[in-house]
């Protein structure tokens, strides 16, 4: 186990290094300049500002400086937010994104699992079709469409929750969380349904039934644990989906999160912030995938993390 975790950690750092390198050089191919007033300034005036940002140096030198600072945990200074470190920028914008992401993930998977179980237990009934229908909507309609619909009906028309902004406490987080949750919800419902149906027809469930265990006990105690394993495998990609969804959903609800910042930093050629947000998202995903792998072993002892006898 320790050996496995150690090996994984080394791979994680290697992955981060490759992502940082690739992003750094890809970013250089972005057209345009980080200087907002670029087209007003003449050559020598541009040179003054470029020197200040450190983008007058040759690319390999810039890369070396960046990687050196990165190794010390310093993500550099934003080109757009003058004089402010990207670390501070991410720190101040992390909270709303985290709250939305966590709520969406928890809400989405729990409701999804419940829907999936209901569908599996009541196979080929109205409940099954209803939950399937719901799941297909969730998968095929992007989160920003849900965001707009929720915003229009629940907030603008019925005045139940705020239209947007992040100044109304927990109320501000409800609609964007629901919009983001639709993806994970749909996906988990589908996975759980399929797995449950398979698990429910296996021998040990028949045995449990024969021994007189009630339906609730069978579903939640015996069947669900086995049915959960495939779902855990997709939680990583689902988290990735949340990140991409948040880029647009945060903008629609005018929420000061990281996703929204990511988009605007690309539009404004803010190299340091593009790097910072990309690395932040990558680190987040890598850690999630790592946790998921560890979780396998806990949910299903049959999956041995370190090779072992076979």
């Amino acid at each position, binding site marked *: 186990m320790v050996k496995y975790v150690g090996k994984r950690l080394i791979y994680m750092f290697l992955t981060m290094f490759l992502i940082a390198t690739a992003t750094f050089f890809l970013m250089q191919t972005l057209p*345009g300049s980080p200087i907002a007033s670029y087209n007003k300034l003449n050559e*020598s005036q541009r040179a003054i500002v470029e020197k200040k940002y450190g983008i007058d140096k040759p690319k390999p030198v810039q890369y070396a400086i960046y990687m050196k600072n990165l190794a010390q945990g310093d993500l550099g200074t934003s080109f757009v937010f003058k004089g402010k470190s990207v670390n501070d920028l991410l720190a101040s914008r992390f909270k709303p994104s985290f709250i939305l992401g966590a709520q969406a993930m928890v809400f989405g998977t729990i409701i999804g699992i419940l829907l999936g179980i209901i569908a599996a237990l009541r196979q080929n009934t109205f409940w099954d079709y209803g939950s399937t229908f719901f799941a297909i909507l969730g998968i095929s309609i992007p989160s920003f469409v849900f965001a707009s619909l929720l915003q229009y009906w629940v907030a603008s028309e019925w005045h139940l929750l705020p239209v947007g902004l992040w100044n109304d406490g927990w109320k501000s987080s409800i609609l964007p969380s629901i919009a983001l949750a639709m993806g994970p919800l749909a996906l988990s419902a589908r996975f759980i349904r399929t797995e449950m149906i398979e698990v429910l027809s296996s021998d040990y469930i028949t045995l449990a039934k024969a021994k007189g265990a009630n339906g609730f006990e069978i579903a939640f105690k015996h069947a669900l644990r086995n049915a959960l394993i495939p779902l855990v495998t997709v939680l990583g990609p689902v988290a990735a989906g949340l990140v991409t969804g948040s880029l647009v959903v945060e903008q629609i609800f*005018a929420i000061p999160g990281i996703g929204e910042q990511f988009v605007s930093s690309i539009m404004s050629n803010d190299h340091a912030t593009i790097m910072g947000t990309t690395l932040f998202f990558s680190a987040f995903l890598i850690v999630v995938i790592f946790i998921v792998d560890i979780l396998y072993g806990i949910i299903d002892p049959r999956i041995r993390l370190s090779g072992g006898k076979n």
Partner: protein
Amino acid sequence: MKRNKMLLLFALSLVLSVILAACGGKDKTEDKNAAPNKENDKATEQEEAGEPDAEQVLNLIESAAIPSVDSAIVEDAVGFNVLNNVNEGLYRLNLENVAEPAMAAEEAEVSEDGLTYKFKLRDAKWSDGSEVTAHDFVFAWQRAIDPDTGSPYGPFMMSGVIKNATAISEGEMDKSELGIVAEDDKTLVVTLERPVPYFLSLMSFGTFYPQKEEFVTAKGDAYATNSDNLLYNGPFVLTEWDGTGDSWVYKKNEHYWDAENVKLETINVDVVKDSATAIKLYNDGKKDRAGVSGDLALQYSSHAEAIVQPETSVFYMKFNQEKDGKETPLANENIRRAIAKSFEKQDLADVILANGSIPANFLVPKDFAFDENGKDFRDIAGDHLVYNAEEAKDFWQKGLDELGVTNLELEILGGDTELSKKMNEYFKSQLEGNLEGLKIKLKEVPFSVRLELDTNQQYDIQISGWGPDFQDPITFLDLFVTDGTNNLMSYSNPEYDALIASSKDELALDPAARYEALAKAEKILIEDDAAIAPIYQRGLLQLQKPYFKGLAVHPFGADYSYKWAYISGKE
């Protein structure tokens, strides 16, 4: 069997979502027309009263976060807007957009040759209670031009205007040589490189605001990084700004010299980038003003609370005469003139833009620059290259004959927003429809890509625009002098260059002759040479609550002053 059911379900869900979407859309438009009329009736009642309410709280939307509030560093619209409301320069643009003394106690004393300005400062205080002195201006200006500061606008605004600015910014002279001296605590003397007729209006621009040396030095790198690390000498102080956040609050500045005329107590600002969300917040009563951008304009142009905010940005086609070292077909004057005259501008402004934009047959915008009698530069300079499809056809034929071809394929380089795309399609159909043998290819790219293609002169026709940096026609006409930083289309006319040069030199002290020269230059650029084809002067559609009054909208620099704004008749 099962698969069929799944397919059926899927199809049903698709149909349902289409219906849902359609319903949503329809309700939207109906709602817009119904609700506001009610409020408008209320508004007209209250207009007569006009007394400020007891509660003076305004709720506004900004389109982007604040990058900086350091007057030496600011280079964007939001930054200049914030600066204008929390700080103040020697002059301030008033409600009529005339620069009037602000930190200066009275009109400046100007020397005979127009090179020396002497300002007497009024008794004004910083928000920490200390006096605003002449040294604060000297320090701020020197800091803005110091190459170590890395200011974009310092060198841009001061070079060629303030004495020695160019040499200092290039590191050839010490910043103490800058043409600004504090004779005593309350007397400031500024020396110019050349007479600058619009110099006083420049004094209202953010880059020329004062900074207190003691405070800036004490804060060091932390200066201006959040609302606590700043000093204010304007109508409001900035609070609750963490340096990168999407919200902030303006509070009335009790130390402001003219505080008795500032009515608003609090202004809550949130950044909302999505125009549709901004409008929803407005309709919900959370915000008192919202911009209606792009596609939404047509839908809201008849909204009862819609107002057109006139702007001073002008959009035009640039004709690139040289690509990869070779002349393009657009080097032919008749071809350029034909294209410039071949598209209808009124329809474009009314139907496609629908945001209060007006057709432009000029480069220097309307309601922007005035002579000393208050006459608009536009009334002096007249119209150029007016739409005329018949004439366009003749010029086109002549041009083709001169080039010895029967057809041409040209590329229009334009923006990639929904609105830009519609506009590009419009040009394509107008040009191809009126000019036989012309094939237009559209290239639609984001702004930064367009800038890069512009810099490398990789385009045929480019839809471009410009907003002014100071209140004088030269801010536009300077663009197209030979080798100008923004010419980038190989246009060159010595006569044009000479007129622009003379306006900065021998004509600088003769306003009437100077305006004549500038008007002539504009005519050469557009009517005589057809170097560019003006399209429209932009307007902005805004929704504004009827109880929100006294907002000053400025034609250059900062967009707004909230100093005179107030709430009247909000229940």
